[in-house]
């Protein structure tokens, strides 16, 4: 009968940081990789909003980042569904 569940709070903070700050950071890494390449160099200095630089390696890395994010979201939704639909209690 404790008033504060420290273990749960600790987990919410750590997983919250990993998912809530980590995933958008991965998205930022993806944007960064995507921007590498010749096309970006051409527009350097201007306030262009061109996202795709054209470097193949950069584009592959970016694609991987975005895939990992999508996978993490799908996994998260699945977990929520699993927690939210527990097996019905046996009728007595």
């Amino acid at each position, binding site marked *: 009968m404790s008033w504060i569940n420290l273990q749960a709070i600790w987990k919410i903070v750590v997983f*919250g940081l990993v998912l*809530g700050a980590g995933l*958008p*950071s991965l998205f*930022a890494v993806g*944007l*960064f990789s995507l921007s590498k390449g010749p096309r970006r160099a051409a527009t350097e200095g201007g306030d*262009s909003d061109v996202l795709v630089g054209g470097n193949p390696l950069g584009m592959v890395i970016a694609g991987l980042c975005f895939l990992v994010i999508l996978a993490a979201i799908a996994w998260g939704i699945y977990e*929520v569904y699993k927690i939210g639909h527990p097996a019905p209690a046996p009728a007595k």
Partner: protein
Amino acid sequence: MSARDALRVRNDVVLVLVVVVALSFDFTNGFHDTGNAMATSIATKALSPRVAVALSGVLNLVGAFLSLAVAATIASGLVDTNLVTLQVVAAGLAGGIIWNLLTWLLGIPSSSSHALIGGVVGATIAAAGGHAIQWHGLVSKVIIPAGLSPIIAALVAATGTWLLYRISRSLSEGARSHGFRIGQIGSACMVSLAHGTNDAQKTMGVITLALIVNKTIPAGSNAPFWVILSCGLAISLGTYLGGWRVIRTLGKGLVEIESPQGMAAESASAAVILLSSGFGYSLSTTHVATGSIIGSGLGKKGGEVRWNVAGRMATAWVFTLPAAGVVGAGAYALAHAVSGTPGVLVLLVILAAIAGVIYWRSRASKVDHNNVNAEWTGSVAPADQPEPAKAA
């Protein structure tokens, strides 16, 4: 004694009234909380206001079907269900709705969950006394998470904001804001989904409780399909109509937001809400979203948080539980004095009248999709009414 008797009497008329009031609450919950998910996307123009509220509405409906965990907590964890009657449920809902409408009029993003819980707790105390409340559950599952969740959300959002600016610092201003605006669409959708799994549940729990109290369904039943569907529809309709006043306070009033901050704030909100639901805390999505937005202001170098606006919100949060409780208790006293089905009817009429007055008052200082993004001048309603916000 009368409470006990009422328990045993089936009263389908009152049941229908309670369901109507519960769905009305769900509707106010939807339009009060649109801002939690969409305020930052609208403020950074990642999504147009109309598209944002439509998307959020659909995702709330999906979210309502995604999880049924929180519904049970609301029904059984806070009050002694044996002492609850349909009248108590109706009075509690009335307390929640009135508080929700008042805070909406003032543009304060207060917690719909706390309004509902406060209303039900207040009505229960009025009906059966303080011993009918599970105080431990109330403190450990509602009050402590209410204090901690915005702080955790702010920490996550501040960390995320700092990281996003650090990683993307070599990008040009335009590319960065373009890129994160795309990301924001995804993160805002996650918040809407999380909102559906959390807030639509609370009304489902209350309706299920009413059905059990009325012996329409046996104790321990899950929410029937029509309850899930109607709650999902009510909250998504409310979301679609959009609480422009609250959206404005959240999106423009607290922090001037850029798209990386918006994405960081939304990701933090979605993660904290979904994780907390997993651990059984039915927390307030409003508190989390506000904490995240403040965090996104703290995490950016030179970011500015309007602490006076934040302080006004925190004050409303502290008052939400007791104030909704007092209104709930008053509503019960009224319904009980008239007694029976007429009592609940009188309650409904008064509720509708109050809602009408508040709606009429809101027309005097209208906030809608046209002026939601107008420059923040210290008040909810933009200073210059007829001027369209397109000027910028």
